[in-house]
């Protein structure tokens, strides 16, 4: 448990550091520049991890109680899955409350909508965005723990696919909308499982292609994501 707390704290700290070094200097730059910066930060961290911890994957020692399963009638649930679901629910509820009910959460949304106006309203934008990064990295750290416990091993490049999927899901749902992110995640996950089951076996290797075709189609009908604002750009 101590190790888990330390791990999450470390990822939170790393997030804060990244914000200060890489993102704050380009505040207000083109969103593409930010996207690219985040990719290069990813590459940086991955390679750092490769150098520090060797590129081979190593086992993740999950405590025994996580590996047990709970049986209820004919239903069999890995306790880890259950814990993951509960943690996701708690974190999500907490995040929603935080973003809508607390001062800093509201400032955060204000800053994402209009940086300049938020600043004019006396919001300390830097502090708010740093807080957002801290929370984001904290959540990612928690996910990292759950994920490694589920997969049973860790390696430096393990984060890439989940993050890509998370990014895609949040865009599909509509950037800046929590319910959108949840819906996006459900759509992505649901599509993957459904297609895995429904596609004829000759086509199952192509599953990811189908998933993305459907996602692109979704974007065509809702160009700003499912829960994204439909507000027209003003001149």
């Amino acid at each position, binding site marked *: 448990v101590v190790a888990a707390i330390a791990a999450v704290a470390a990822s939170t700290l790393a997030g804060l550091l990244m914000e200060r070094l890489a993102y704050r200097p380009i505040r207000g730059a083109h*969103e593409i520049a930010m996207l690219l910066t985040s990719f290069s930060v990813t590459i940086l961290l991955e390679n750092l991890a490769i*150098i520090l911890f060797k590129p081979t994957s190593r086992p993740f020692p999950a405590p025994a109680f996580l590996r047990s399963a709970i049986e209820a009638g004919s239903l069999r649930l890995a306790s880890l899955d259950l814990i993951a679901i509960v943690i996701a629910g708690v974190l999500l509820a907490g995040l929603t409350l935080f973003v809508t009910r607390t001062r800093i959460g509201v400032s955060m949304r204000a800053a994402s909508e209009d940086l300049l106006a938020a600043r004019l309203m006396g919001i300390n934008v830097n502090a708010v965005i740093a807080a957002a990064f801290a929370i984001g990295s904290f959540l990612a750290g928690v996910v990292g723990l759950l994920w490694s416990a589920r997969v049973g091993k860790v390696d430096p490049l393990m984060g890439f696919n989940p993050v890509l999927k998370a990014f895609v899901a949040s865009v599909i749902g509509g950037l800046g909308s929590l319910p959108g992110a949840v819906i996006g995640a459900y759509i992505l996950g649901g599509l993957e499982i459904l297609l895995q089951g429904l596609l004829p076996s000759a086509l199952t290797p192509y599953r990811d292609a189908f998933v993305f075709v459907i996602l692109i189609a979704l*974007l065509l009908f809702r160009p700003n994501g499912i829960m994204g604002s439909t507000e027209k750009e003003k001149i």
Partner: protein
Amino acid sequence: MQMKPLDRGFPRAIVRIIPAAVLLAALGLLLAASDFLAGDYIRRIVIGIGINIVLVVSLNLSNGFTGVFSLGHVGFMAIGAYAASICTLPVTLKAMNLPALPGWLSGLALPFLPATLVGLSLMRLKGAYVSVATLGFLVIVQVVLVNWDQLTRGARTFAGVPPHTTVWNAWIWAVLTVYLAWRIGRSPFGRDMRAARDNEIAARSLGISVMRSRLLAFCASAFLTGVAGSLWAHFITSFSPKSFFFTQAFAIITMLVIGGLGSVSGSVIGVALITIVSEILRNAERGLTIGALVIPPIYGASQILMAVLFVLIIVFRPQGLLGGKEIDPGLIARRIFPPTRRRDGPPDHGKDAA
């Protein structure tokens, strides 16, 4: 008393041709030197720069001029590479007689169809949404390549592609791409593209068909990227679907952004800079001795340094090195050798651009 401009000037036609001619001649000399005099290592770097110029300049055509940021161009590169290799590979005999011609052609033609399809559907999206959708396209290409075993050998390495790429055909395409991008950028189409990028609503209200200009840029760019893919395939001679994924995409985009979005000369500079720097870093990675200082080999360090470099450039020059401007050899030449002024109208502006 003022001297008449007519007496001092140089004939316009010559002044207009000279810079391009001088550049081409210098380039030709350099290439010849690298082809005939330098060793294999240098030659490979020179070819690599040529191919990367095609890649980056063509990406600039779509991402820089129209502002629709595609992350999926590597997908077109993959299509070009696989198409060219598949067409040249099984008919080894034919390839000997007809050097790579059918391969080139298919590498050229094939990316066009998906580009039109993708372009038609995606060019209406904006910002991060386009990036995700094109990323989706890349994933789709990737999945198809991995799974279409009979044609692509699946995830295994596709080896034994005839090495047809030379310094010369790589650089002919590079020059051609630069010229095309330059011309398109200055044509009415190019103006439409940039107008729609800078203010879509204003552009629409002036009657610019945003869709048409974006689609043109996207397809032209996909076409050239496909060419680069086939050049690359005949250069590397063995590759797998993994060669055309995120690392490659990121490398190209880094060069593009560092050179400056929307600047053709910037792209060329970005390519040269990154290729040379990363080559130096890659050698340094194997360990290095500077005087008494011995640095042990740290694999992966070059990627870290590149990422840091990229962030630094974004921080200090968010617009890239050239920031959308061009280094125009013609303009420089006109500064040095002022052409004769024509009697009518303003001296030199406007005409070249048309």
